[in-house]
């Protein structure tokens, strides 16, 4: 308890530190927002809650990290992870997800949890349980007399995340496939009647989501670190974001992603880094409880 008060007094004594935490939170939150958008996409279109989301991120991160280890610029990891995860997403869709779309939601949840375990254990076997990070060799900017340090990698990661998000949004708005995806999300049966191959739409959506996760993972490896078992934490973060925002509401998902980043930076600073994971999970319980309380007033259940 004492060190929390101490940390609060540090923040009030040096308000410029708040700025540093805020910037870091926003920069990291952009990655959360990107991956949460993918989750919301699959959730809304296919009604599959993908628990392997965080592990797709870790896969992308490990690809970037191994590129860096082989003296290839890890920035290339972003497109490379996008392509590789697209293929992995396709395999996962063909073998597992396509068979559980029509079943009840717990089935798809558990099936994707199974995928998540396979991925994290394979990563553990291949790369070991150590925490890894890719270094892009870019400098760190010192602002406000060294009190606020912002690494250029993070700014670059932020820009890439924003660019990718804009590209995906334009794609969803204007392209033929994007329109088909949105039509399927609205009413799959009507879409089928009107000649849309919904099977293809589902497959494409899942691959696109996996690819977005891969790119987000590449950014995670650049600005932060990757570890085989961190995937579950990411999945939970993304669930918190999407549950808090509601999956149909794109601006809210993005805002919640940034909020999550900022919340985590401040929470980690105040409570200490060892509480970070507990903090995220407790936030999940908080959001779920709040949603319930909201629904209780109209006598409905959160389902």
């Amino acid at each position, binding site marked *: 308890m004492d060190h929390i008060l101490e940390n609060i007094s540090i923040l009030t004594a040096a308000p410029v530190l708040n700025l540093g935490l805020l910037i870091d939170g926003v920069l990291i939150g952009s990655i959360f927002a990107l991956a949460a958008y993918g989750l919301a996409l699959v959730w809304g279109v296919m009604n599959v809650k993908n628990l392997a989301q965080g592990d797709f991120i870790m896969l992308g991160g490990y690809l970037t990290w191994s590129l860096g280890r082989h003296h290839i610029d890890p920035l290339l990891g972003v497109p490379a992870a996008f392509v590789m995860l697209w293929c992995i997403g396709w395999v996962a869709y063909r073998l597992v997800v396509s068979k559980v779309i029509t079943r009840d939601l717990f089935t798809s949840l558990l099936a994707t949890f199974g995928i998540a*375990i396979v991925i994290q254990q394979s990563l553990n076997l291949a790369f070991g349980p150590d925490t890894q990070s890719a270094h892009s060799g870019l400098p760190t900017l010192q602002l406000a007399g060294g009190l606020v340090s912002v690494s250029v990698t993070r700014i670059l990661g932020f820009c890439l995340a924003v660019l990718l998000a804009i590209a995906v949004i334009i794609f969803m708005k204007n392209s033929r496939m994007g329109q088909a995806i949105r039509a399927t999300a609205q009413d799959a049966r009507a879409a089928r009647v009107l000649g849309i191959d919904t099977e293809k739409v589902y497959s494409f959506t899942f691959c696109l989501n996996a690819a977005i996760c891969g790119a987000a993972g590449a950014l995670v490896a650049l600005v932060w670190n990757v570890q085989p078992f961190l995937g579950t934490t990411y999945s939970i973060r993304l669930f918190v974001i999407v549950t808090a925002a509601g999956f149909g509401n794109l601006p809210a998902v993005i805002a919640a992603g940034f909020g999550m980043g900022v919340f985590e930076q401040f929470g980690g600073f105040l409570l200490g880094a060892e509480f970070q994971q507990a903090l995220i999970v407790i936030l999940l319980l908080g959001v*779920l409880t709040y949603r319930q309380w909201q629904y209780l007033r109209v006598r409905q259940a959160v389902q």
Partner: protein
Amino acid sequence: MTLASRQALPYLLILIAGVAAPFLFRDYSNEIAVLWLMILFASTWDILGGQMGYNSLGNIFFFGAGMYICAVVQIGLYYDVGMYTSGARTTHIVFTTAQYFTGFAVGTVAAGIGAALLAFVAGWILFGLRGPYFAIGTLGLAIAAAELFASWEWVGAASGISMPVFPYGPNTQKIFFYFLLFALAFLLLVFLRWLYSTNFGLALNAIRDDEEKAEAMGLHTRRYKRTAWAISAVFLGVAGAVFGNMTGFIEPRDIAFPTTTFNLYMVVMVLLGGKGTLWGPVIGAVIFHTIKEVTWTYFLGWQFIALGLLIVVTIVYFQQGIVGWLAEKYPRLFAPRARREEEPALKGALAPQEGAE
């Protein structure tokens, strides 16, 4: 053979097998003790997952909570817990025989009661959630507990607690804990057999089939759900208390709240055996545990990948489970009695309509 004796037969067989097993396979008594624990895990999971239709991914929370409650009570009766956990690495603290058994008994009772209370509180928070939200919420509960215990200095944080040492020799210890776990699992199976035959069991099935209708029919669904969860929590809490003393060392992430091992095994075993049946979880647990114990060492690090694949394959391709598959194939022998009586009646009701068309 009369109906009553036919129903008692499996219990008699289990009783004989359970009592004879540690003497027949002396070297494997620990593995068999864990098998009873697995049966208990699967059967308690099925109370919610199979009978009530609420798929929890966090039942391990009560197991770990029971373990920690028992440890704290056991130590706290005679020593200061904070001092014990911080001094465990440097000083050896001895419990007398009387102290050990009083502490263990009081701790186990406290673990059962504490776990039930926690289930009431958790149920109060989580039972407004349905389907996947409930699964994720309960998973969050288990992970949160593991993380909080791992940073709580008073109970030893991530380095855990060394439990008081069992006062007799290792063989007595093995037999003692074996029979405790066996008795607990046997008691649970008898209890569930009775529970599923009461109105309470029917209410759980009504909630599974259609919760809104059940509520409209006047069932106080929330109360039923909370009670059902508390029942499984009592057994899990007591099992946690016994298992903590059996291993002699408890630690939050891998022993008390192992979200990706024991916690998932529960679900896999039930799905493998067949959800919503009394014997499905038992059969699933026996098969899963036997395969695991026999083959695990040959996998050399691949075992958890195999576990993930097993989950995926079971859920995608074999969802009805062994008992469900048998009931489909041989409905006369294995289907629940209600369904057997219902089917001919349904056919009779449909026949004239078909004729009229």
